[in-house]
């Protein structure tokens, strides 16, 4: 093998398909042929392999590091420690994390040293020979204990002890009276994003003293800023190129091996590739915050909610990552999609010595949804009402006031979504002998139907779309139109990360819609164009979609101007490769209008601003858009063994406008599946700060045998503030899936389950 595999090729989308259609992905054929270049597929002549030495202790002081034995290994080119990092600090929201640990390690798996060698196994073996002298310290592993004044302070420069952020919501009366009160304490375990493509990338040193990094990430420019800062290089000398991304779900929002690979490449003068194995991946990215949530709801006898009080504690682990924003979300969305006049919520994000937690699909709203939906079920039971009736009675609508005081100013069809899932036909109740594969326990042959009880449960959730609380949330798009090969071709260039969601498809649909052409080329994403923001928070269709639309509109105006100048026609639009009048009459051919000219426009596009919430009351216009989904789960439970099989998981979601209906359904089904995982399977088990199950053998995600049929209803209630009226899609289905499944298990067993994931021992006692 010689040469290199690095830069991605432009993706040409030639199939037709405008906004509202479901054209095939432009990268689909490459992906099914095994020819799509993921970050772990990068390859370069003379490249080296990087490996990372990580702390075995969740909390320890480093007394000394001896790299000598590692350097002595044949084939090793460099061994680096904190002494070799120009600026040894980084962080997505708060720079509080060393690139390589210096005096102290704060979690098990924290990087301490990195090695470059000519073979990955040589690099790993050399890393294992770095001698680190640790003084082991007691880890702080309980988030509530970490908040007490006597707890060891893990970040002495942080002003509020171990509390990263405390968000207070104070809305309405402080102590209102209610006929009926229900209380509960709920616990959410630590979930992993478990994307399939491991953290990986390749850094290539450049002649100008800078570096080119080919990387799977969710946000190229946030990576660029942090990498350049740590390397003490100007940002223009750190050029990032998006390599193929094997899923993300929040886990690629923080850095993993980016700075490490660049340090090794700059030190050795050779390209360096780092690919995490699955075990290392569990230590290489942040997880979903585990949470303890204490709720009290008050209601009238008729079932009208009077108040909610809640205390939510999110374990942020050793470094802040996005804990501040997650805490903000859990608080501001903590009352759920309900009209509640009086709300009092205290939400804390806390430092501990557990694995760092940050972004995962749902981002704080998932934890809250499990708690408030469990409470709504408890209230329904107390009142003798159907769980859907009590929800519909209190459902948020357009014009409702959120606990932040923000008025919901676009569609909020919460009641309609609940009615849709309730009114779906139920899956048939089986009679006669049953296929083992359709029973709890499956082909383990644990039951033939005896002891199996069916249950039904419901859930509904609310998620914000986009970055909130005053963040300057924008995207940049460069759109170019020229005649190539005798026909008009549009090129779209952004830095937005295609992570599997189908953004490349959507960008081409938008370009066709706005510019009336057939051929669209999606340029590879890189930092040679302005930031697109993150592929997270269900925001890219909205924000990068908005930027592409706006850039297309400017290109269209310029082309119409050309038509006026050259042909004297007063055209108003582009369609089918022609400039047309308002009655769609063809006035000129785009090929002739453009001639040899290229029309190019670059637009930075923002959604309307949001604002920080008041630090004492949590009041403010915090979120640009809300999105809603509802689920109905039907489960079979083997009540003697505690085994659960989800029989059907129906979902209804409002997407504002289904930009690509097939992709929308794919997002809803995939999000629902991750919610099922949290309900009954998925938890990173951490004991005394140590992860006990960092593998796909012991951390189980749903297989095709675990997933039931998922019928989907899609509502399109346009949001007038958003491009095309669209509403972010990716996250809402992950919220309500979990509580719906747990409610169904409660219905089958009569057991008051308060913790997810539900394990067999929770059911059989």
């Amino acid at each position, binding site marked *: 093998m010689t040469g290199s595999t690095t830069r991605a090729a432009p993706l040409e989308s030639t199939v037709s398909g405008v906004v509202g259609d479901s054209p095939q992905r432009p990268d689909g054929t490459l992906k099914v042929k095994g020819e799509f270049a993921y970050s772990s597929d990068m390859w370069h002549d003379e490249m080296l392999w990087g490996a990372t030495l990580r702390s075995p202790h969740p909390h320890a002081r480093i007394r000394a590091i001896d790299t000598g034995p590692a350097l002595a290994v044949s084939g090793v080119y460099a061994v680096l420690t904190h002494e070799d990092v120009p600026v040894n600090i980084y962080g997505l929201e708060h720079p509080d994390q060393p690139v390589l640990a210096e005096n102290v390690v704060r979690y098990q798996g924290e990087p301490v040293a990195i090695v470059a060698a000519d073979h990955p196994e040589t690099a790993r073996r050399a890393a294992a020979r770095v001698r680190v002298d640790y003084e082991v310290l007691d880890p702080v592993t309980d988030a509530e204990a970490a908040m007490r004044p006597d707890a060891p302070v893990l970040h002495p420069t942080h002003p509020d002890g171990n509390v990263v952020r405390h968000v207070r919501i104070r809305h309405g009366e402080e102590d209102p009276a209610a006929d009926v009160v229900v209380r509960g304490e709920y616990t959410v375990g630590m979930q992993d994003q478990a994307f399939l493509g491991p953290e990986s990338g390749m850094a290539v040193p450049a002649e100008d003293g800078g570096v080119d990094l080919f990387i799977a990430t969710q946000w190229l420019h946030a990576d660029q800023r942090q990498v350049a800062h740590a390397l003490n290089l100007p940002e223009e000398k750190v050029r990032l190129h998006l390599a193929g991304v094997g899923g993300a779900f929040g886990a690629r929002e923080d850095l993993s091996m980016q700075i490490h690979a660049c340090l090794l490449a700059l030190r050795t003068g050779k390209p360096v590739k780092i690919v995490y194995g699955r075990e290392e991946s569990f230590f290489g990215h942040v997880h979903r915050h585990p949470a303890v949530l204490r709720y009290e709801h008050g209601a009238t006898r008729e079932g009208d909610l009077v108040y909610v009080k809640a205390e939510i504690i999110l374990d942020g682990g050793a470094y802040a990552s996005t804990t501040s924003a997650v805490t903000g979300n859990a608080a501001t969305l903590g009352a759920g999609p309900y009209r509640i006049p009086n709300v009092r919520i205290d939400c804390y994000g806390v430092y501990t010595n557990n694995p760092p937690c940050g972004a995962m699909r749902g981002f704080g709203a998932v934890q809250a949804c499990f708690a408030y939906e469990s409470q709504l079920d408890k209230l329904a039971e107390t009142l003798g009402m159907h769980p859907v009736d009590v929800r519909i009675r209190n459902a948020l609508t357009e014009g409702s006031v959120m606990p932040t005081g923000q008025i919901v100013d676009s569609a909020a069809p919460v009641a309609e979504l609940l009615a849709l899932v309730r009114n779906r036909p139920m899956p048939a109740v089986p009679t006669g002998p049953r296929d083992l594969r359709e029973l709890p326990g499956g082909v383990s042959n644990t039951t033939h139907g005896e002891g199996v009880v069916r249950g039904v449960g419901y859930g509904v959730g609310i998620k914000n779309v986009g970055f909130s609380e005053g963040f300057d949330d924008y995207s940049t798009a460069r759109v170019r139109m020229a005649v190539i090969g005798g026909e008009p071709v549009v090129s779209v260039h952004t830095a937005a990360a295609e992570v599997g*969601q189908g953004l490349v498809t959507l960008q081409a649909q938008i370009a066709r819609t706005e510019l009336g052409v057939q051929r669209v080329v999606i340029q590879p994403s890189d930092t040679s164009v302005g930031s697109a923001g993150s592929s997270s928070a269900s925001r890219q269709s909205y924000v990068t979609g908005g930027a592409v639309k706006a850039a297309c509109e400017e290109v269209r105006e310029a082309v119409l101007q050309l038509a006026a100048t050259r042909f004297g026609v007063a055209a108003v639009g582009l369609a089918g490769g022609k400039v047309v009048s308002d009655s769609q009459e063809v006035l000129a051919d785009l090929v002739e209008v453009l001639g040899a000219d290229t029309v190019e426009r670059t637009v930075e596009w923002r959604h309307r601003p949001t604002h920080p919430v008041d630090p004492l009351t949590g009041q403010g216009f915090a979120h640009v858009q809300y999105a809603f989904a509802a689920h109905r789960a039907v489960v079979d439970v083997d009540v003697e063994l505690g085994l659960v099989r989800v029989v059907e998981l129906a979902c209804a979601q409002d997407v504002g406008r289904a930009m690509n209906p097939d992709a929308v359904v794919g997002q809803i089904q995939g999000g629902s599946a*991750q919610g099922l995982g949290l309900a009954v399977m998925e938890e990173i088990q951490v004991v005394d700060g140590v992860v006990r199950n960092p593998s796909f053998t012991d951390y189980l995600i749903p297989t095709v045998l675990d*997933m039931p049929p998922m019928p989907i209803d899609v509502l399109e209630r346009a949001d007038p503030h958003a491009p095309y009226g669209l509403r972010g899609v990716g996250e809402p289905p992950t919220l309500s899936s979990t509580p719906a499944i747990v409610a169904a298990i409660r219905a089958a067993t009569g057991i008051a389950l308060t913790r997810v994931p539900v394990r067999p021992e929770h059911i059989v006692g």
Partner: protein
Amino acid sequence: MRLSFTVNGHEMKADDIWPGESLLYVLRERMGMPGSKNACEQGECGSCTVYLDDVAVCACLVAAGQAQGRSVRTVEGLSDDESGSLDPVQQAFVDTGAVQCGFCTPGLIVAAHDLVRRKPDASDAEIREALAGNLCRCTGYEKILDAVRLAAAKVGEHA
């Protein structure tokens, strides 16, 4: 050590192989065939599924030396070499929207290809059982099932 075996009908050689290398590593890093994916490298996810002498295996669990003199077929070898046209299973994955991030796709396509040729009339329960060793994190599997049903129907027509 030196190895030679057939990959997608072509005789391939690799030198200086460390005996601990897997078939997956040799395919990806020494033979320039990164189509088979490295998602877990412990046989749990199926992303590296290839045919070894016509039996679908996880390439990460096969020591490279075990492939000596044998025949390997990877996802890169399923489409028609000359025309470039996709295998019906590959085409069905594109047509049904079964591909999102696509990292599980090569392994799933080989596993589904194996199922469809053995049992084009497989029931849903049989499809689920056959693909239970292939993890996907994006789709929830619904559209993958659609793809396998579609491919099976097409292959069945021509059988």
